[in-house]
């Protein structure tokens, strides 16, 4: 794979901003360009916290260690700066924004990526939006609905994938994208991510999940196991299969 990693996490310790309890106790991880990684772990292991701190959630604080993205320290960068630099987080619980259509939201997001004083071409935007929705098998009317307002779980996750398709990230973080989805919705979402990765094989993907089932559709190159705030096992796709067969108990006891 590539020479310099796109994302390099070194000995990261983190906690909730206004609490003392540490959640991550020294995480090391490197992601190479174009690689698909999965972090699996039981509830409360800290895997979602890792996704959030990579995207810059203000509710968490990194107390030690470093995170470099494309060779640059990003710990001080605001979430919008990270987004513009190519990091995308697909949320486990996407937020509802009543009164704002998906199209309007995406237009604002893309406008914010323009150079100072630059204007997004609205016709190009409309064409691009329709093309991306077609690629993902979505009906054009979807973009006129208010962002996540009254959406089913599946619709919310599809909206995340549409945003990912429009923003064309270099590093996509999928935070429990499979949670709350039935098998059909799961397939649709995985299919979308696969298409985007085929289209841009340089895109790096980090999948955070509790269950192995998503990985039946989204094939990772590497699988890591997180337990109690640490990565306790890393390997190839076979790690996921091991987990499927034996569960997390083994890792928990190893750790203890």
């Amino acid at each position, binding site marked *: 794979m590539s020479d310099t990693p796109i994302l390099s996490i070194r000995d990261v310790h983190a906690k909730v901003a206004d609490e003392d309890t540490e959640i991550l106790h020294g995480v090391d991880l490197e992601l190479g360009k174009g690689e698909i990684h999965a972090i699996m772990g039981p509830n409360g292991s800290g895997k979602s916290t890792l996704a959030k701190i990579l995207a810059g*959630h203000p*509710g968490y604080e990194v107390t030690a260690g470093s995170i470099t993205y494309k060779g640059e320290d990003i710990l001080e960068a*605001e979430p*919008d700066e990270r987004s513009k630099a190519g990091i995308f987080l697909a949320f486990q619980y*996407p937020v509802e924004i009543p009164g704002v259509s998906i199209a309007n*939201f995406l237009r604002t*997001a893309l406008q914010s*990526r323009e150079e100072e004083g630059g204007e997004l071409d609205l016709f190009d935007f409309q064409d691009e939006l329709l093309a991306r929705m077609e690629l993902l098998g979505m009906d054009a009317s979807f973009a006129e609905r208010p962002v996540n307002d009254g959406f089913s779980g599946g619709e919310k996750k599809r909206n995340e994938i549409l945003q990912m398709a429009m923003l064309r990230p270099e590093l996509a973080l999928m935070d429990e994208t499979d949670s709350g989805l039935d098998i059909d919705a799961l397939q649709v979402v995985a299919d979308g991510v696969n298409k985007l990765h085929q289209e841009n094989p340089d895109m790096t993907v980090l999948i955070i999940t509790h269950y192995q089932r998503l990985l039946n559709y989204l094939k990772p190159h590497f699988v890591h196991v997180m337990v109690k705030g640490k990565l306790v096992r890393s390997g190839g796709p076979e790690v996921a299969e091991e987990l499927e067969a034996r569960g997390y108990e083994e890792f928990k006891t190893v750790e203890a």
Partner: protein
Amino acid sequence: MAQSTTLDEPIGGLMEGVTDSLNSDLVQSRATGEPEWLRNRRLDAWASYERTPMPTTRLEEWRYTDLSRKLSLDALTPMEWSERAFDRESAPARMAEAMEADHESSGHVVEIDGTVAHVDLDADLAAKGVVLTSLRSAVEDHPELLEEYLATRALPADRGKFQALNAALWTDGIFLHVPRGVRLEHPVRVTRWLSEEGKALFSRTLIVAAEASQVSYVDEILSDDMEVQSLVSSAVEVFAGNGAQVQYVSLQRLGHGPFHLSQQRTIAGKDATLDTLNVNMGATTARLDLNAQLLGSGANSDMLGLCFGEGDQHFDHNTSQDHVAPHAYSDLLYKGALDGRARSVFRGIIKVHKGAQQTDAYQTNRNLLLSEEARADSLPNLEIEADDVRCSHGATVGQLDQDHLFYLMSRGLSRTEAERLVVIGFLGEVLSKLPLGGVVEKISRAVEAKLNV
């Protein structure tokens, strides 16, 4: 009303709010040269003002707005009427910009510092008998209509302290009369400008839409930011005759500094539609008293409102859905977004009188707090004397929390863009219910400008 006692001896509360500048001499001078009916009306109004105590926070209706702290009547001098010419080229930037955004219209009025400086009206409409003019001219030209409607049935002076003050001291205002069956395709647009600090300005609006007529009216008031308080008192009376369709929109975009007091009463006749939209963006303190009376059976009122406050702004909305007649419908939706230390109060009552069976009346107030220090108080209320009605009320106060902002910022939006999008989306629900050309754009821009402060 209470039995009037002799006025020779002051009793408790008497003469409150009478100052070196706002006094009976001023009323006399305003009334000089006016027809007798109007002169008497001013003097009666002033007497009513003198004997009505200044509202305090002990009154439920003024519980959250302490006039002794928010309004310095003693420091104000009255704004006088004076001959003015309006020249669009030399209009202040904010005013010019606001007028620029007024696209299609049936006519315009420009009022500067309480004096109407310009009126124009589509010639075809004038030929059909539509009257759009200054209140002062209307006193000369349409005395019979004014005598019937001005400060009588809608906002009589004995309705309250400030109704009385305005009725006694108004300098000018706008009169619109739409004759029976005449329909105005485009809105009448009014731009009112305040330029002076330390003044007390009293202006009135009287809209009389006769049977089966139709009109939309957009009343926008603006100023620059001011260091010293001015009081802007606006009294608005709107009559919709049987089957008439009327929309009244108030856009309050004063700069920082003024105290805006808007007192409105709408009276809807049989099968009339009388909708209102009140937008409060500016001023340091803005108080709205709106009473919508459903007087004729089958009358219909949508009552919409929105405010967006920041800094130390204080908005107090006091509404009443007054169902007198049966089979009438009213639906109120007021929304407020508040940033900084801004505060809003919503106090609304649905009052259904005994004979008003088959009333449908709804009331919703929603607030969005953008900062820790912002505050919204919501007091919806019902008073129902009929037994066959459908009424509901509800209120919410929500917060733009960290997770909202993080979600939007993780898509590349700056904090300001994220807030703007959420606020526009939140307030947009109100605007979508009354889509008048230019209004949505103006409000969107005003929201943006405030978030960019």
